[in-house]
């Protein structure tokens, strides 16, 4: 993926003094007329709360933007997606094609309508079911490639061996899919025999994406219109999940016996994979390569971090305290760094394996980005319904030590009220777009002269804007590049069911892929309007912002709102991010 974390700037960049770029420069990055003329923002500490200067919405920018807005409105009236100017055309056209022929961008009703009566099966199962209703584990075991229902599923994932033996299939019984698996293997080896490598095949509405990892082949067959990069990233994660369970040393089994049947080794892990595949449509960590924190008072998170640090100093490699999939605090031993993808896979493994909830567990697991060859030993314990503590060590006989560590941690967390605060934060939820401050500079030191004007535009939330936040803001994701963390707003009422959430994440995913496209990018800004949303993406050296607005949202207000979101996030960074004492060594 383009966001290879190894290419992230080193933390030493953080210490470059802030030359305070004016907001004119920063807003210029949102100017679609001159996508190549952007000023590269100069790295500055994320915590610089004063970086949004008072005069950020200069008249110039707004006028340019308004011209653009007119163009967009025309496009909207014609019923196609928006076209940006100049260099943006390529991306926009791609989008236009998708918008006009893709059912997935126009909602589920259309999706079902356009692809046959029963083709909605998968989407019904996956999309409409809310998280609570979701039944873990593999369904439709009775199916195979001869079943009509199996063929109509929108997104298949397969793992097979280089000899064509099935290892995992999202749907249907692997053993019954031996023939199909052999076909996939034949395609891959046919191309390889020609000294080439097959990346993907398009067949009508279907895209077949291949990923070869030594003796393990991974294949996705999808008609969801997700970009190739997104599907490839998903295959990478599935491979990582497999390594987390088995380590890469499983390759040795294939060296000894090329026809080795690997599927029994993954016995009982269907639920882990199905949960990960499901996360592809609800968890932005799967494409952002970042983790998210549970919002907590700075002192609360510090208290949790202090006791974890204490334990890490006693020979624990990583100590991770999470509430569901959100991090409360995490600490690594000296020089040990934990990759966000490993955290995602570890959290998915723990959350999807019900047995961790019943008692304390001690299990070998591998963190593929940390060391794909070796097992670590994980002590896992739920401190309450949602909060789980994972202590990782390299020592296979450390159970009793880790158990003692857990008792110490638990005592401190209870005493300092951290667990109660975690529960409270879970109930309160995260950031709500409705709460976006009228003018966040009011919260910081600098008072903007434009404040009153801003108030008039979208400030006091008039009644007709009851849906979503100001200026039609429905949702946003802010990813801090240095911290490898993101924060996303809670879903507001226009996006109130999981089908809509999935559609929005797919739109973000597409946006992410186009922004990080190595052929045409990387890009700084993107503004696109289709019949579902106005989507705005803004990437600087510090952060990436993805925002979704009402499709009728005013562009000028949307851009202003994005600036306010960024300021809001910076104002709250002590509470929504895990700062300092980072175990990330890059």
């Amino acid at each position, binding site marked *: 993926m383009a966001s290879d974390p190894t290419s992230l700037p080193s933390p030493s960049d953080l210490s470059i003094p802030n030359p305070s770029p004016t907001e004119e420069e920063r807003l210029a990055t949102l100017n679609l007329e001159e996508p190549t003329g952007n000023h590269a923002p100069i790295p500055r500490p994320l915590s610089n709360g004063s970086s949004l200067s008072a005069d950020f919405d200069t008249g110039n920018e707004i006028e340019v933007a308004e011209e653009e807005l007119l163009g967009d409105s025309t496009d909207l009236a014609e019923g196609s997606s928006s076209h940006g100017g100049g260099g943006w055309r390529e991306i926009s056209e791609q989008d236009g094609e998708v918008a006009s022929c893709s059912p997935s961008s126009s909602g589920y009703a259309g999706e079902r309508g356009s692809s046959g009566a029963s083709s909605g099966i998968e989407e019904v199962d996956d999309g409409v079911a809310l998280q609570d209703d979701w039944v873990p584990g593999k369904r439709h075991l009775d199916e195979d490639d001869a079943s009509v229902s199996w063929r109509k599923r929108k997104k298949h994932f397969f793992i097979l061996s280089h000899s064509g033996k099935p290892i995992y299939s999202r749907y249907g019984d692997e053993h019954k899919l031996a023939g199909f698996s052999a076909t996939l293997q034949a395609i891959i080896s046919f191309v390889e025999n020609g000294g080439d490598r097959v990346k993907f095949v398009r067949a009508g509405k279907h895209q077949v994406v291949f990923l070869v990892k030594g003796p393990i082949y991974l294949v996705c067959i999808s008609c969801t219109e997700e970009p190739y990069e997104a599907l490839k990233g998903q295959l990478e994660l599935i491979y990582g999940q497999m390594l987390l369970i088995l380590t890469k040393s499983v390759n040795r089994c294939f060296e000894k016996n090329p026809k080795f049947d690997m599927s029994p080794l993954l016995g009982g892990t269907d*639920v882990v994979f199905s949960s990960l595949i499901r996360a592809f449509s609800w968890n932005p960590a799967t494409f952002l390569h970042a983790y998210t924190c549970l919002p907590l008072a700075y002192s609360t998170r510090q208290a949790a971090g202090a006791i974890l640090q204490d334990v890490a100093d006693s020979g624990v490699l990583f100590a991770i305290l999470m509430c569901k999939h959100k991090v409360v605090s995490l600490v690594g031993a000296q020089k040990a760094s934990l990759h966000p993808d490993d955290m995602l896979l570890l959290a998915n493994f723990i959350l999807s394996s019900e*047995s961790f909830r019943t*008692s304390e567990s001690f299990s070998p697991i591998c963190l593929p980005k940390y060391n794909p060859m070796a097992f670590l030993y994980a002590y896992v314990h739920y401190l309450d319904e949602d909060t789980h503590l994972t202590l990782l060590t390299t020592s*296979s006989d450390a*159970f*009793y030590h880790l158990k003692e560590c857990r008792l110490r941690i638990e005592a401190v967390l209870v005493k300092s009220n951290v667990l109660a605060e975690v529960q409270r934060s879970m109930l309160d939820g995260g950031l709500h777009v409705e709460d976006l401050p009228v003018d966040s500079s009011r919260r910081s030191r600098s008072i903007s002269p434009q404040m009153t004007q801003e108030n008039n535009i979208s400030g006091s939330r008039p009644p007709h804007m009851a849906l979503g936040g100001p200026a039609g803001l429905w949702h946003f994701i802010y990813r801090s590049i240095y911290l490898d963390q993101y924060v996303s707003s809670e879903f507001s009422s226009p996006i109130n069911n999981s089908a809509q959430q999935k559609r929005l994440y797919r739109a973000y995913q597409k946006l992410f892929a186009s922004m990080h496209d190595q052929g045409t990018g990387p890009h700084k800004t993107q503004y696109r309007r289709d019949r579902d949303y106005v989507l705005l993406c803004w990437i600087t050296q510090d952060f990436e912002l993805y925002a979704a607005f009402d499709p009728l949202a005013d562009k000028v207000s949307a851009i202003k709102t994005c600036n306010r979101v960024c300021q809001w996030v910076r104002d709250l960074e002590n509470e929504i991010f895990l700062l300092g004492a980072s175990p990330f060594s890059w």
Partner: protein
Amino acid sequence: MGCSASLPARNSGQLGALNSEGSAVSDSKNLRVKLVLLGDSGVGKSCIVLRFVRGQFDPTSKVTVGASFLSQTIALQDSTTVKFEIWDTAGQERYAALAPLYYRGAAVAVVVYDITSPESFSKAQYWVKELQKHGSPDIVLALVGNKADLHENRSVSSQDAIDYAEKNGMFFIETSAKTADNINQLFEEIAKRLPRPTSAS
């Protein structure tokens, strides 16, 4: 010293044992023993433990990952108490190589099969052999045929199991974690068979 026979001294090898707190005895009236459950996946090891420790039975299968640790103390008629520190291991093939981590140093091994599954009975025999080879020499071995409530689907006869258990010096019992049949009896019988410390501390 009875079941303290399995202490770190013998674990100087490459694979440490999970018994740093000891599988051993505190004093003659209050025993503390490390117990490991082994057997094929899906035979009901976790269900037996949860029935014994919490009195619960959950029919939805929750595949164990690695191993779960639970403890339960029972009082015997002679006013001694036995605290079982139970390692409920995962039955999946990929964990087989890691089993020594859990059974080394154990004073008791409970090998479980499903009376409706001959494969699980063969797997149980594999574990018995492995324990005889690599377990503590004085380990108490129990053979447990679980899912006794499914007797209409029985495919492992009680007699076969009894014969096998006798031949290998094991204690044998059929249980049902679902109905709670013989679950407490299993652990009480084990407790009675534990070697006692010869002298009070």
